[in-house]
């Protein structure tokens, strides 16, 4: 049984107890504990259940690579699923709950899945549960979804705050082990701006446990001295609890710094880093061995066993069998023996073990069995013993050893993630049986030079002396490449026992029978076994990427940190292809999960996306505006009086505007100034119709198409002077159209003498609309607004009510209408003046829905309703606005393509429903002929705009219908969801005042 020892534990403070709860039970640990070490200290080895078979699991590791021990932390708005106990710092009051089991961690009904394991092999979802077909959706899928899975997504919004921090440095050193410290020192001494980041709270990495001698003394002394020197260098910044999650193009890096659960300040900080060099001092991870029962709680990585012992004073078991294929595993046996724990045997898969560490173990009286391995582990929720076999055999048991823990070491793999994220290549090291960075093929910066430099264990230098030399050289090289003068100083001298090479062991025993292979886990979290990978190979999944997805190997939250190499080696053996040819799956950021909150930063709620507001916004808000988003703006959908519903308000606004006078805040319309000697020529190229012939003081409606001929914006163009036009655009289109104009001027017609300025927000634009519009505005005084002085489609500048104004006689409603532009800072004053002058006439503001109904009654199109990026002006009956005389305009050639001239294109029509009260849903589809009782029905078009017209007392709609112009008077069927069919008659889309007599007064 696991528990706390009387002594030891480098990181814990036994004077400071910390209480916490796990599954409701109050427990106690010490400051400095991780949740994993505290649970182990309380004898709680069982910490989670696996994803697929619900097998009982304990921690297999002591760090970020942990696949098993995932819990839910916190409650309510501070609930976080899938937290690894091995990296969760214990703090007072911490609340943890285990996941993926029912009803309890100890007794989980879902574990019945394991009984059905033969039904759930690799790719089972393609093979089993197929018949009966209907059962998949109603029975199999819900059942599988309920049983598979990990933590539960929090239901409340995150109560914590997060922030971004932008950092620039010469050298980013990822990893604060002794290699990272050495590299940071080397680069920092040379004067480079160094940012050093360590994912854990503790500096020094594995050296704290594995204790090489550095600079003639204990590693811990050197670490303390190195930190002191780094802190004295003003050009070096270091951050603990900061995990460099990803390295991206050209030396961009992201890091997540955990600041702790606090009511003050952010919980985590996302560092967005630009580094000219990234030193990846990310260390190495120990590999598990694949033997039957290697997932039983109590089977742990050898390094984890000694981490818990040395760092936290926690013993995983009383009797620990060590099984290894390398010398490093003996460190665990030695540490356990020195701490007074029993090590019944070291099973070494190699034929001989003659290195310094095995000799030391022998000297301590530990029995070493070479050429041996574990046939299977006995035990369910805890280890009861191991059956020993010959490594080269099929698993015949040659002995049994009673024990309650197994420490396994399958060798070490450099952490190559950061190196690989943006293209660094790997090379297979046959001796050490791992992939390491191929330093000849690094990820490249913009200058074509490598920006990443691996250091220490991360570059494959696993022995302390080599690692320190390598890391020191990496730091020097980074500084030197950036032009800093470096002195050729020696690396800190490190000494550790000589190690004999490991022996690659991908299956234990090497020729394990199928029964054993089906119990030898590769990916612990996803329950992928050796047998699954071999099955995938047999079924033809020869690509490692395909095999990964088919078996889900490496797709768990640990992203294959433990399983990757073992899995591809298993695939390599099954396919008889060398490991380097099988290759690795792609390493993608982040290295470990980054909380969504940190990625979002402050960009949430009101700060997620700024809202554009007009000068009249505050007035509208105070006067009943019911807002809707339009582009980046918010605009009143309608203004509600008292208890009015939306529909009642809209109806009132329409009738008031048609019969009296309404006022609209049209400030959101784009206003783009186009000025220069060639302005007319330029606009002739941009608009489908001719603009150069427009008289000064006149207005003209224009259409803009893209090179595909599709209509994308419309609006009224006015000519202010010989060389000056002002182009009105749609609300959502002003920025896009201004950018469009710039693009053509800069990249195609740079010979034209034109410049473009987006004046949209410089003006408030207020439309006074309705039969009494002239009376209202005339009352303000200052301009002659008579029909004679200002006919339809002209404009004039002057002052109205003392405010500088440009009044346009343009109409999007079919009514007598003046759109008046005034300086933005006078917008509210002018609006107030209009409201005062209009009070006697019953003036009332109207919103976008009224605007839509007014324009739809007149058959005016709306960009985004009648257009969808596939519609040309000709489809909309706007051929009159497309010049046939101009030699060229954007879209002209495209509109002559066969596709655009087909006679059966969908064209714009009006629709009247049989029942005048029935309003067609937007987007309803028209079908060819009556709706068929069964079988497919051909769609011939769809409704683009649909409203009830208060003016006319019946519903109106516009639609794009195949050969629409030929169908006048036809009755079409519009089948709706649920079987209802609405019938409507095709008609002219202009429902009101076809002659235009209302606006031309």
């Amino acid at each position, binding site marked *: 049984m696991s528990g706390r020892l009387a002594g030891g534990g480098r990181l814990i403070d036994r004077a400071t107890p910390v209480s916490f709860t796990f599954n409701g039970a109050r427990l106690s640990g010490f400051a400095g504990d991780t949740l994993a070490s505290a649970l182990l200290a309380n004898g709680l080895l069982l910490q989670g259940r696996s994803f697929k078979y619900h097998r009982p699991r304990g921690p297999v590791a002591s760090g970020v690579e942990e696949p098993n021990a995932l819990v839910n932390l916190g409650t309510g708005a501070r609930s976080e699923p899938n937290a690894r106990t091995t990296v969760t710092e214990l703090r007072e009051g911490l609340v943890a709950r285990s996941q993926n089991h029912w009803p309890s961690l100890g007794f989980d009904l879902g574990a019945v899945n394991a009984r059905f394991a033969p039904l759930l092999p690799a790719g089972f979802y393609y093979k089993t549960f197929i018949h009966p077909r209907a059962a998949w959706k109603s029975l199999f899928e819900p059942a599988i979804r309920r049983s598979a899975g990990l933590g539960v997504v929090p239901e409340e919004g995150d109560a914590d705050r997060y922030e971004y921090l932008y950092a620039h440095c010469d050298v980013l050193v990822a990893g604060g082990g002794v290699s990272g410290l050495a590299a940071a020192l080397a680069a920092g001494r040379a004067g480079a701006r160094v940012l050093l980041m360590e994912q854990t709270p503790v500096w020094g990495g594995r050296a704290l446990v594995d204790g090489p001698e550095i600079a003639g003394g204990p590693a811990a002394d050197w670490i303390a001295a190195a930190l002191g020197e780094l802190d004295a260098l003003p050009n070096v910044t270091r951050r603990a609890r900061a995990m460099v999650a990803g390295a991206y193009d*050209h030396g*961009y890096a992201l890091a997540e710094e955990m600041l702790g659960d606090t009511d003050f300040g952010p919980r985590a900080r996302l560092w967005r880093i630009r580094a000219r060099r990234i030193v990846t001092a990310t260390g190495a991870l120990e590999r598990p061995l694949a033997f039957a029962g290697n997932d039983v709680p109590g089977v742990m990585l050898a390094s984890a066993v000694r981490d818990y012992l040395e760092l936290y004073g926690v013993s995983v078991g009383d009797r620990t069998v060590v099984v290894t294929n390398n010398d490093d595993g003996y460190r665990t046996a030695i540490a356990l023996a020195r701490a007074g724990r029993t090590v019944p045997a070291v099973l070494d898969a190699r034929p001989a073990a003659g290195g310094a560490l095995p000799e030391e173990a022998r000297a301590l009286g530990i029995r070493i069995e070479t050429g041996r391995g574990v046939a299977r582990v006995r035990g369910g929720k805890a280890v009861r013993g191991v059956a020993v076999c010959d490594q080269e055999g099929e698993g015949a048991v040659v002995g049994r050893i009673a024990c309650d823990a197994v420490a396994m070491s399958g060798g070490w793999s450099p952490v190559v993630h950061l190196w690989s994220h943006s293209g660094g290549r790997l090379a297979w090291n046959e001796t050490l049986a791992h992939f390491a960075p191929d330093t000849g093929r690094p990820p*490249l910066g*913009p200058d074509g030079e490598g920006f990443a430099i691996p250091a220490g264990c991360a570059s494959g230098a696993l022995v302390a002396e080599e690692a320190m030399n390598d890391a020191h050289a990496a730091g020097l090289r980074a500084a030197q490449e950036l032009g800093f003068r470096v002195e050729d100083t020696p690396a800190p001298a490190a000494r550790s026992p000589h190690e004999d090479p490991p022996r690659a062991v991908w299956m234990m025993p090497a020729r394990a029978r199928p029964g054993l292979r089906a119990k030898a886990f590769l990916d612990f979290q996803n329950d992928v076994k050796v047998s699954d990978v071999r099955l995938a190979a047999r079924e033809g999944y020869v690509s490692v990427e395909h095999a990964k997805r088919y078996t889900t190997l490496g797709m768990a939250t640990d992203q294959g940190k433990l399983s990757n190499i073992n899995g591809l080696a298993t695939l390599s053996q099954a396919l008889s292809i060398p490991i380097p040819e099988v290759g690795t799956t792609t390493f993608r950021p982040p290295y470990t999960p980054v909380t969504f909150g940190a990625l979002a930063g402050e960009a949430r709620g009101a700060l997620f996306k700024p809202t554009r507001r007009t000068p009249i916004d505050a007035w509208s808000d105070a006067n009943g505006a019911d807002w809707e988003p339009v582009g980046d703006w918010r605009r009143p959908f309608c203004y509600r009086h008292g208890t009015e519903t939306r529909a009642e308000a809209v109806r009132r606004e329409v009738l008031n505007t048609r019969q009296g006078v309404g006022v609209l805040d049209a400030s959101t319309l784009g206003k783009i100034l186009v000025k220069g000697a060639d302005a007319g020529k330029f606009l002739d190229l941009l608009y489908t119709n001719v603009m150069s012939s427009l008289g000064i003081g006149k207005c003209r409606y224009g259409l803009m198409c893209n*090179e595909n001929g599709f209509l994308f914006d419309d609006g009224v163009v006015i000519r202010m002077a010989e060389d000056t036009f002002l182009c009105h655009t749609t609300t959502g289109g002003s920025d896009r159209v201004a950018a469009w104009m710039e*693009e053509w001027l*800069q990249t195609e017609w740079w010979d034209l003498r034109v410049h473009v300025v987006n004046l949209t927000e410089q003006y408030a634009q207020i439309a006074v609309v309705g039969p009494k519009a002239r009376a209202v505005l005339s009352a303000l005084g200052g301009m002659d607004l008579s029909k004679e002085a200002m006919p339809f489609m002209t404009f004039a500048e002057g002052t109205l009510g003392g405010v500088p104004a440009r009044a346009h006689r343009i109409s999007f409603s079919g009514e007598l209408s003046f759109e008046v532009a005034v300086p933005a800072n006078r917008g509210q004053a002018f609006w107030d003046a209009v409201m005062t002058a209009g009070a006697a006439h019953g003036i009332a503001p109207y919103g976008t829905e009224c605007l839509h109904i007014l324009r739809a009654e007149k058959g005016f199109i709306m960009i985004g309703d009648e257009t969808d990026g596939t519609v040309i002006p000709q489809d909309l009956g706007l051929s009159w606005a497309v010049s046939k005389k101009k030699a060229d305009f954007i879209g002209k*050639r495209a509109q002559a393509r*066969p596709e655009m001239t087909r006679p059966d294109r969908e064209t714009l029509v009006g629709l009247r429903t049989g029942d005048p009260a029935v309003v067609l849903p937007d987007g309803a589809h028209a079908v060819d002929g009556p709706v068929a009782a069964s079988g497919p029905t051909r769609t011939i078009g769809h409704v683009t705009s649909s409203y009830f017209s208060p003016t006319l007392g019946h519903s109106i709609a516009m639609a794009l219908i195949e050969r629409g112009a030929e169908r006048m008077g036809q009755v079409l069927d519009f089948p709706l969801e649920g079987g209802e069919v609405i019938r409507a008659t095709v008609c002219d889309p202009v429902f009101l005042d076809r002659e235009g007599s209302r606006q031309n007064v």
Partner: protein
Amino acid sequence: MLLLTCPYCGVEAEETEFAPGGQAHTRRESAGADDADFAAYLFERKNPRGVHFERWRHAYGCGKWFHVARDTATLEIFGAYSAQTAAPPEALIAKIRRRRPGWEGWS
């Protein structure tokens, strides 16, 4: 995230400060072009693994369009230059030839 240098204002900045604009040096076809040429102008773009000329705009900076020669596989940036030209500068072509001896040329 690429690091690009705007040739107009000289600012070296993050990719997010720029807007991509697709392949550079396309020749606009307009009225009078036959269907095949026009379709090629509208729809056909190069997608090389290697040297590529592309358009970028310093959208959150000076607003200028410019061209970049870039290796799509290694992300090496060979250079940036004005968009108001029909061909890449000679010096840039020479530099790319030095860096990529087997390069088949830009057009």
